[in-house]
């Protein structure tokens, strides 16, 4: 109808749908965050504002040992996963980009497989691997890290390769032409140009690690390897208090802060580089 009236006008119907979708997806999150600040024990009835579930003396995120342990373990897994997956992913991306021989296509497809494999399949497969093939490692933190690294590497490869493709080979060739040996071509030219993509992929890896439930759950050992997502799942049916909402809120904030920070750094780098056709954060 709007089309008949004014073809240059704002597409109202699209605005409406978009607005509705944004509200629909944000309301549950907003509600969960809201009840993290509930003064009572209920997660459904509002009883006034308080921060007791964050900082209160008992049963709060900062004082309950179980909640605190879960938060610490989650952050630990996230940091280690970033430190392991990012360098390996960058190296793989560089290697795949240079790969000229046969089999390049196959390796490319294999790299993308973890992105499309259902996580539950991945989790079961990894569980079997650690139980049957590599019992020496066993379940627990090491298995969780290896599991998370296994599928987060793919994200790093995809993001970094996107940037590599848009950079092209000219800069490396220019560096070689000016006398830089291969090592210097990498350090002085390629890595600085890849920095935005590397930071972006580290942030994505961290966020995915924080959010991950299936693989992390399958490969967990004792209670000390419980993460936030596992705790949320396990106690959702027990006797949940708003402390769980508070825990989720903290995890959410960390994720958002990571992505926000990565975005800012990325933009700063990107603005100093006119060739803005880079792999975005939203891969």
């Amino acid at each position, binding site marked *: 109808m709007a089309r008949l009236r004014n073809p240059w006008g704002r597409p109202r119907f699209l605005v409406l749908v978009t607005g509705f979708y944004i509200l629909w997806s944000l309301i549950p999150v907003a509600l969960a965050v809201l009840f993290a600040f509930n003064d009572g024990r209920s997660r459904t009835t509002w009883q006034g504002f308080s921060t007791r579930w964050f900082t209160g003396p008992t049963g709060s995120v900062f004082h309950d040992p179980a909640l605190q342990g879960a938060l610490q373990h989650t952050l630990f897994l996230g940091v280690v996963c970033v430190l392991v997956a990012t360098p390996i992913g960058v190296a793989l991306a560089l290697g795949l980009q240079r790969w000229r021989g046969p089999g390049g296509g196959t390796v490319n497809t294999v790299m993308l497989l973890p992105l499309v494999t259902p996580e539950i399949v991945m989790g079961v497969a990894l569980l079997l691997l650690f139980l049957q093939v590599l019992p020496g490692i066993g379940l627990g933190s090491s298995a969780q890290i290896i599991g998370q690294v296994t599928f987060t590497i793919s994200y790093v490869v995809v993001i970094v390769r996107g940037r590599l493709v848009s950079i092209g080979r000219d*800069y490396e060739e220019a560096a*070689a032409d*000016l006398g*830089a040996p291969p090592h210097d071509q990498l350090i002085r030219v390629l890595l600085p*140009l890849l920095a935005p993509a590397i930071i972006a992929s580290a942030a994505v890896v961290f966020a995915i690690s924080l959010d991950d439930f299936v693989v992390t759950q399958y490969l967990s050992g004792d209670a000390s390897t419980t993460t936030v997502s596992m705790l949320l799942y396990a106690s959702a049916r027990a006797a949940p208090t708003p402390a769980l909402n508070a825990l989720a809120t903290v995890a959410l904030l960390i994720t958002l802060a990571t992505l926000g920070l990565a975005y800012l750094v990325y933009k700063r780098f990107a603005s*100093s*580089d*006119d060739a803005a056709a880079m792999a975005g954060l939203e891969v």
Partner: protein
Amino acid sequence: MQGEIHLEQLTKTFGDVTAVDGIDLRMPGGEFFTMVGPSGCGKTTTLRMIAGFERPTSGRIVLDDVDVAQVPPHKRNVNTVFQSYALFPHLNVADNVGFGLKYKKLTKGEHRKRVAEALGLVQLGDYGKRKPNQLSGGQQQRVALARALVLTPQVLLLDEPLGALDARLRKDLQVELKALQAELGITFVFVTHDQEEALTMSDRVAVMSGGRVEQAGTPREMYEEPATLFVADFLGVSNLISADASPDDGGSALRVGERTLRATSGAMDASGEVKAMIRPERVGVEAQGTTGENRLPGMVERAVYVGSAHELHVRIVGGDLLKATIQNDGSTFAYEEGTPVTLYLPPDAVRVLAPSGGAPAEPEA
């Protein structure tokens, strides 16, 4: 003279595709040498092999008597100006120019002095602190030039360096580049697809096609004595006559329709169907019915007034269209469209062309 390059049987294949097909070229030291040809002719691949970015499949690249074909690019005393400039976006202009000096083991003072000199050479002395993306296309081009020249290479390779600039800037930079080359006296190997650029800037030109060198020589030789049809066509002198040739008393007899033309330059030994060319300014236009040797009847199809001259497009017997240029000397113009005329084609101006890819370039001597 330093900076002399000999390419010997240089070949590069990518899978089934032969990009460069056994070329031999001699690029004298200190000269402005241009490789010109349509896209896909192998000129850029040849340049990239000289730079070291592509490894030749076979053949030799002899730089000042040393075969460098298997030397990696960072160890060759050859520098490149890229078509995209490839200025490092994360470094400012001075750091871009100083990038390669790091490998020259200079003191800080020397380093700074050479960067300043190089920037001065391209008239960008005050731009050291800027980032490449704060410069115009022409300025970026100069930085790329300074970054290569600061290393005092024996040979500078330029891969369509003016391709991304607008026409006017292009003209200015053509003149500057040529002057710079003359001043520095180093070998420039220039790649372009623009035949005019090739003719006006170079000491020597090689026209390439299909991975081979069609002909190499001075711009004058190339323009006035193109060896092959392709060269004549590519260099913009495609005033062609289809004829049936037979060798005749040190010249060539060309049968065109009912008439016979005598030609005394080009491929004198050719026989059978050939193309012959004549430059528009050598075609004499005479009134209809004029008789004599080497004359063909025709009909003016178009008359184009270009200011200093008239350009006539004359359809001759046999169906070919010949261009003829008549200087505008102020006299009354008598050849309107549709006028029957007689064309006089002087024997020494009619050049018989070898078919493309035929005999090796003969006017080299």
